[in-house]
């Protein structure tokens, strides 16, 4: 893949995926500056390894995998490891769109999930990925993903019962 073609692709990819990736990375890392770094790193890595993209299931899957791996790398860095990353309302900046207490509760509940469950929740219920796509992103057996989704759902149901989980 030559340089010009990759540039065209990169330009389109940033336009299309920057916002969803930024929000995904923030939900994963709980820090705006880190999330921005992760997204930049994601696009840079993607640009460098574009030749591999041909064999991937899809652009979204591929970019998300790079983003998730980048977030994991960042989480392992010494600074992040030694920082309290628990999510409280005051650690989340104000939104630019209107949101209410329920939105805050949902977001904090998702961000507070254990990392494996959070990962599954973010990809499936936030990013709207199918199980096949998630398997491609996480490189995990689907049985593991199924299990994590069910587990996450059970925790969220308990946490958010008053807000969103209703018996029909």
């Amino acid at each position, binding site marked *: 893949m*030559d*340089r*010009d*073609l990759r540039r*065209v692709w990169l330009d*389109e990819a940033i336009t299309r995926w*920057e*916002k969803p990736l*930024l*929000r995904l990375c*923030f*939900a994963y890392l709980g820090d*705006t500056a880190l999330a*921005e770094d992760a997204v*930049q790193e994601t696009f*840079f890595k993607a640009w*460098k*390894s574009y*030749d*591999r993209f041909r064999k*991937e*299931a899809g*652009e979204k899957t*591929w970019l998300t995998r*790079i983003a998730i*791996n980048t977030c*994991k*790398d960042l989480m392992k860095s010494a600074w992040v490891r030694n920082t309290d990353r628990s999510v409280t309302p005051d650690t*989340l900046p104000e*939104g*630019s*769109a209107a*949101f209410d207490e329920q*939105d805050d509760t*949902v*977001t904090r509940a*998702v961000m507070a999930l254990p990392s494996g469950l959070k990962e599954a*929740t973010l990809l*499936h*219920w*936030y990013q*709207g*990925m*199918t*199980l*096949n796509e998630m*398997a*491609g992103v996480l*490189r*995990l*057996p*689907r049985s593991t993903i*199924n*299990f994590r989704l069910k587990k996450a*759902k059970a925790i969220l*149901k308990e946490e958010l019962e008053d807000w*969103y*989980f*209703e*018996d029909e």
Partner: protein
Amino acid sequence: MKTNKKTIQSAMDRRLSFLNEQPSCRAAVLHRIAQEEEPVMKKKVSLGLVFAIVLVLLSVAALATTLLFSRKAEASRTADRAMEKEIGIGSEMMTFFARGEEEQEDGSVLVTYTGAGSLEYVLGTYSVLVKDGKAEISWNREGEDVSGGYEADAWGIEQLKQMLTDCLDEETKSLVLAKAEETAAKHGMQEDDAPSEEIEGLHEQIEARKTAALNARKLSEEEMIAAGRSFIISNYGLNEEQIARMELYTNYVPEFSDEEGVIPEEDNGNDWYDMINDRPCFRVEYLLGQPEVPEQEGVVVTPLPREEKDGYYIVYVNVETGEIEEYEFNSGLGGIG
């Protein structure tokens, strides 16, 4: 219980609405790319860009299925075996390389193994000329000093062996890759800067390519999956225990698709099809992974460690002829993703 992809999605989107596109992101990425492109010294080896291929059918009995290979795939197998036998680079180590094949005018096939991504400079390129079933190997870093571990400018078999261990851990892996990048930067590397035509509607073109491959299909997907599976088992020498762990990813249908809150798979019908080397292919994909460790209350569960040959196996099967056109094994130890 009413589960709610939409409620989670919309609640989080509203709450995270302070995060939007920023011009600084694009600028920062472009700046890094410009820095990457600055030094001019080495021209990147272009892989997998050969199109005109003479079709030669070769059959090999493997398990219960007769496997057919394109000429390039057959040459790749010969080259793979030679790399393992003569250099000691087996399928696990090949994860650190990108393989390319190019047919020569005299009927031989040149198979190249170039260090993947940031490993390109340190690992260099192994070229294997396959002719009449025989393989001749050369390495563009031959004669260079490979001693000193990762400090060496050229990394040979000793470093590759070490990488198999070091890259099991993501943190150590990133250090290895960073070292490779640092060494490459020290010597300057430049991407191929030949001008090219701008391609508009890239996504539409990819979609059209996939649909063309689907429309050319003459074999059933079951036949192609069987061929791909047989190839993986025979080519990589999987044992019974490993075969039992093989999980098919192609055309997967979720087990609990009826459950509330689970997003149904989108089926465009062409998801697993593509044109590979201008030939219509169906992608057969298997995962060889470890079984899940059951969770226990209050106990941090450690996943089972990776075992040899665990990873992703991808086989492109020609939808018209059933030939294996291309194959790949990704152990997850090297490169991006």
